[in-house]
């Protein structure tokens, strides 16, 4: 069974700094494996180990996603090999463009039975790449997946819905987005990182893949800091909890929210 896990190498917005003009400065933010991706890798690893299958890591982005640190970080987490589309033409690429490149790479890998992704990326967090990727491939997509078992051609998927869980059967390849807490990912040990150095990596450029031309142009016309409400920042002395509570209740009633 061939399982592809699409992962992202990206910085955490918490480490970025935003000027008053809204321009985001990523220079002090270090990239890493997007926080929910290891959950997806864990689900893939379990299924592959149960069925004697192969887990292939796949990512697409500017050339820095193929840096030595990035490769090690990815390959030490449970991949058997990786396919990396590293191309500076992908700098600033949006959801649809990345999904198109990933779809082309999945077709290039060939005979893929399942693609698993994390719930969302750490930097953009749109939660749309799995859906658009599935659309590009013509496969079903399911999100909030907590478990996957079965074999190629008949997958058994457990997923969260509002108010409960569902078990689905999928008769063919699919794209699954793992729910954020579907599994506790393993922490790579020294042996994993050492082995990562020896795993095969195929690097591709966008030009070598069959990717449809970009349809839409999105032009940024203005940036600003987030539109935050001005807060009162009124501190209430808590040396006497009962008095503090009373004072707060009066203030909240006065503000008309209690």
């Amino acid at each position, binding site marked *: 069974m061939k399982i592809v896990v699409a992962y992202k190498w990206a910085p955490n917005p918490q480490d970025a700094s935003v000027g008053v003009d809204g321009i985001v400065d990523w220079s002090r933010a270090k990239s890493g494996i997007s926080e929910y991706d290891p959950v997806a890798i864990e689900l893939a690893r379990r299924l592959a180990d149960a069925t004697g299958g192969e887990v292939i890591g796949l990512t697409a982005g500017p050339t820095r996603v193929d840096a030595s640190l990035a490769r090690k970080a990815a390959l030490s987490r449970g991949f058997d090999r990786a396919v990396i589309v590293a191309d500076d033409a992908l700098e600033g690429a949006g959801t649809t463009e990345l999904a198109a490149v990933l779809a082309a790479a999945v077709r290039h890998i060939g005979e893929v039975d399942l693609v698993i992704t994390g719930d*969302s990326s750490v930097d*953009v967090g749109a939660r749309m790449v799995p*859906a658009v990727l599935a659309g590009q491939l013509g496969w079903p*997509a399911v999100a909030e997946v907590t478990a996957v078992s079965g074999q190629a051609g008949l997958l058994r998927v457990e997923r969260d819905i509002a108010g409960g869980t569902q078990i689905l059967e999928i008769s063919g390849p699919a794209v699954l987005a793992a729910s954020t807490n579907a599994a506790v990912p393993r922490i790579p040990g020294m042996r994993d990182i050492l082995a990562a150095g020896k795993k095969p990596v195929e690097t591709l450029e966008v030009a070598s893949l069959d990717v449809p031309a970009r349809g839409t142009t*999105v032009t940024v016309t203005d940036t600003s800091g987030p539109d935050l409400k001005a807060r009162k920042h009124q501190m209430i002395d808590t040396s006497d909890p009962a008095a503090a509570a009373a004072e707060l209740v009066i203030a909240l009633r006065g503000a008309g929210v209690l």
Partner: protein
Amino acid sequence: MTANTWIVVAGDPAIGNLIETARALGGQVTAAVVGPRAVADTIAAGGVDQVVWLGDPGQAPVEAYALAVADAVGAAEGAVLGASRPGDRVLLGAVAARLQAAVLTDASSVSADGDGLVVTHTIYGGIAEETVRVAGQVALVLDGGPVPAASGAAPVTEVAAVPLGITVVETNASAFEQVDLGAAARVVGIGRGLRTQGDLAMIEALAGASKAEVGCSRPVAEGLNWLGKDRYIGVSGQHIAPELYFAIGISGQLQHMVGVRGAKTIVAINSDPNALVFKDADFGLVGDLYQIVPALTEALK
């Protein structure tokens, strides 16, 4: 000529905000609906110009109709809108793939401008905001909003749809009680400052006394599993704008606070005077929540 706007619906008619946004763009508004007939009818009465109904999925989940929805939308020229829910995202994604449409999320304003769109949205988990001009196809993921009130009667056209190969084999109810935090006027949020699951009773007492729902930060729902995921407020959870929000034992990191930015009044209770949460609070109480929360519950009686 103003382009027409499509809305995709994955079985849940709570798309009032999508209809309002679509109407404001001018042009015709058509909804592609997967779900029971009643849902198609509610939407037909809710202010759209036309409903294309792909039928009741039956034993299949709505996701099985993603490609059929993309077929139904066809070569649309205007924007396509979808609600920020798992099933709706899948349908919208298939349409975006078919149209090679750009995808934008977290828009706070959408308007037509000539033959393009101007969209203002927050980016990178909420650290900044940008306004963009879109020329070409675009798919927008927006907060669905409420179920639209009846205001008209658009025609419903049923189309045949071939589903993908997924079926529902089993459905189980959750151990957690369901909640719609977005509809609550007051919410009490609890974070890692709470030491044990049993202490939730104290928080629930406050919620009861203040007629509020209970919400939480990510670790409490996902990591500790003390509360259902529909109570997790944050960047990849609920985005709410209640009248009053209590942030109790919550450090105030961006990933959580971005979910309550719209709250009218925020009260923060935390033992760390340097906690980030006080920067985003209208009222701040530095102290032991195990003393302040019961005192507050008492004061509200």
